[in-house]
């Protein structure tokens, strides 16, 4: 993380990074050049922290959703959360040129959109109090398409500048990170991630199938409901601050599963850690590869991760028999 703070359009020596951070945290020690101080403390440090939180949040909710709907393809995008958030953001960008709609800014609207999608999937996925996994996934996909059509329609009416903003938003970025966002984001991400980890044993039981899980004393429908609420809260928050970053929620959990197995009590903490590291690295590359310009994160997450992911998939023997 120190490296990620140190490297960028302006290089800052590692030692200076630590000195500046320590100066701000402890209040003691000599401060550095005010320009460097500004770059390190006001821009890069919050940015790296936000990237870590967003990466951890997306990866954990991906891992949980894959178990909740018993489907290895599940992630916040497949279940429609990301499309809901996109619609919220695009409404504000296009209809209010990025100001506010009904008092909601881009972030808040994205958050509301993600939760609305979550609520819809939740409502459509159940019948007579039972949430069948397949119905949940398909409801998620359908809800996603509806939100996507609405988003596309709005994009047709957008000016070229707005369209560029929309594209950047949908591909995700943590360039706008500010210290003021961090308390809320870290509170939500850490709390929901810890709560979700408490369900590790029960998530394992979901892998056994619904009837077996019931016979093991787990109220499957209530468990799914709680997990869906927590994970849509988690994704809603991360998408609100960083846009629609794809692939992290799908790939990171699988990477961890292929290396250490599917016991969620180990899987979730490691998924959070790897998700955080991965997004910090991707963000670092996104602002250094085409210096002084920046690439949106969504372009790199898949481009970098997919080849490695495919290599791992081809190496795993059990996938042949399963």
């Amino acid at each position: 993380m120190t490296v990620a703070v140190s490297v960028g359009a302006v290089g800052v020596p590692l030692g200076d990074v630590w000195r500046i951070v320590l100066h701000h945290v402890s209040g003691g020690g000599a401060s550095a050049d005010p320009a460097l101080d500004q770059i390190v403390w006001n821009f890069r440090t919050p940015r790296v922290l936000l990237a870590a939180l967003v990466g951890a949040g997306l990866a954990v909710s991906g891992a949980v959703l894959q178990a909740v709907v018993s489907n290895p393809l599940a992630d916040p995008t497949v279940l429609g959360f990301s499309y809901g958030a996109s619609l919220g953001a695009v409404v504000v960008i296009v209809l209010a040129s990025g100001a506010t709609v009904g008092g909601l800014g881009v972030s808040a609207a994205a958050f509301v959109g993600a939760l609305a999608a979550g609520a819809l999937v939740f409502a459509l996925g159940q019948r007579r109090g039972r949430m069948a996994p397949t119905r949940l996934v398909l409801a998620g996909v359908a809800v996603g398409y509806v939100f996507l059509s609405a988003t596309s329609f709005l994009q047709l009416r957008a000016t070229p500048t707005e369209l560029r903003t929309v594209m950047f938003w949908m591909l995700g970025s943590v360039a706008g990170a500010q210290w003021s966002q961090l308390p809320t984001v870290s509170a939500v991400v850490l709390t929901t991630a810890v709560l979700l980890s408490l369900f590790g044993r029960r998530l394992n039981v979901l892998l056994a199938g619904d009837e077996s899980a019931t016979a093991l004393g787990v109220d499957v429908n209530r468990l799914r409901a709680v997990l869906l609420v927590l994970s849509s809260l988690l994704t809603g928050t991360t998408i609100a601050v960083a846009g629609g970053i794809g692939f992290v929620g799908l790939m990171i959990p699988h990477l961890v599963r292929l290396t250490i197995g599917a016991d969620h009590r180990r899987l979730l903490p490691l998924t959070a850690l790897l998700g955080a590291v991965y997004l910090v690295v991707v963000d670092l590359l996104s602002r250094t590869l085409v210096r002084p310009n920046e690439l949106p994160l969504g372009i790199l997450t898949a481009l970098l991760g997919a080849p490695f992911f495919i290599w791992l998939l081809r190496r795993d023997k059990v996938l042949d028999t399963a």
Partner: protein
Amino acid sequence: MRLTVDRLHITLDRRPILHDVSLEVREGDIVGLVGPNGSGKSTLLRAVYRSLRPAGGVVRVGDDDVWTLSARAAARRTAAVLQDSTGHTAGLSVAETVALGRTPHHGLLGRDGTDDREAVDDAIDRCGVRALAEREYASLSGGERQRVLLARALAQRPRLLVLDELTNHLDIRARFELLDLIRATGTTTLAVLHDLDLAARLCDHLVVLAEGTVVAAGPVLDVLTPDTLREVFGVRARTERHADGVTRISYAARPLD
């Protein structure tokens, strides 16, 4: 622990599936549940492991109606091995799969203790899957999987075992081994079995279900009479206890005309 099913009625999607079903499995007995496809066997099991709420009647495990117990408390008494192995394709090892059996013994904050490790170890040894412990469940053969699922059920330390077609898809030797294993546990058991020969071999008593009601119940020889076999299963057959103590069914060359 004794299982009592008393005048049970079950309705699914407004269709009556079970009608006025009563049966009893005494402490330590193994009772086989047999009947043609669609007679309501699996539905009855679901009522026993507290997955279906009855429209009428009671299921008691020990002295308690299962619906007055919490889901977890019920699962500490009753363990089930079912046919929904659609899950489990997602990377749990054999040892982790067996450890799922400890779930009803823990709340959200519970961590594994000595009891849990002992129960899991013991179940793994009893079912002879020690050598597979570190393998991935999804990589096992059908027979190995059934043994692992039985180990998971035993790790629950249940007082009542519920088995749904445990021996399906197994070769004959694997079937016999699995039956011996169940006998050796000494646990009260209600088992759905398709194979009548196997049912006759394993069970103390049989209950015959047809179209959602009990049509015969009692000791194997009293239940599998030529009349019942003809009326319920549509075959001509005779049941005899042989000199080696094993009860066998001989089927006529042709079913009923």
